């Protein structure tokens, strides 16, 4: 298991994404799958950076843990913050069939996360949000 604890700021976003992507190397992911992991991480981390700590004058922390799955080639990535409770699984899916004039400009990020990952789990433990995402590697086709 590898973990990174850092301050949840835009300045640290690239470093956090790189940490997850390096943890995804050697697992057997195709480029497409690596791209999907990248997307999911960006969407989740930007959400934490922008919304987890609205009441603090200083940005809060986020802990990221990457673990290889034991049962299949794949990875589990856990994002832990101590911000306001937020369950991304409660966010309704956007209506992707709406005409573009009526499409709301937000709500796509978490929809992408749910679509590209094999599983998404949320738990609120004490004062922590724990969001765990897993992806099974299918590899190249």
């Amino acid at each position: 298991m590898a973990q990174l604890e850092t301050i949840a700021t835009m300045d640290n976003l690239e470093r956090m994404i790189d940490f997850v992507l390096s943890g995804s190397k050697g697992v057997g992911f195709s480029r497409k799958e690596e791209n999907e992991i990248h997307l999911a991480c960006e969407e989740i981390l930007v959400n934490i950076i922008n919304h987890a700590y609205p009441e603090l004058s200083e940005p809060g922390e986020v802990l990221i843990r990457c673990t290889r799955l034991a049962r299949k080639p794949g990875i589990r990535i856990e994002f832990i913050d101590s911000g306001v409770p937020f369950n991304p699984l409660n966010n309704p899916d956007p209506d992707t069939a709406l005409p573009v004039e009526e499409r709301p400009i937000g709500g796509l990020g978490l929809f992408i996360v749910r679509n590209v990952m094999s599983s998404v789990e949320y738990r609120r433990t004490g004062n922590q949000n724990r969001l765990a995402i897993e992806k099974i590697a299918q590899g190249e086709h």
Partner: protein
Amino acid sequence: MTAEYGVELRNRTARITIKGKLDTTSAPGLSEELKKLQGQEIDRVVFFVNELEYISSAGLRVIIFAKQKVGVKADIYFIGAQQAVLDILKMTGLTNFLICQDSYEE
């Protein structure tokens, strides 16, 4: 900067070239550039994206913005998109209003 982009308006066609990664870091800058086109007479908005490697929801919002605020009556073209980018456009339903082509002729 994770993306490079250029915006040009000629003959009522806005031509936008994007290279690299259109993500949370780079999308706001492109959005600012597109805002400058608001109020112009535009028939077509053409994104040249064969060197665009990655697009996140922040980038998708810029595309939706382009249709809603810049080219309300315009056709929006997406030229030369890589598979990774096309996959995300399809997943989020943006291909419903984008004209995706391999190449573009005036």
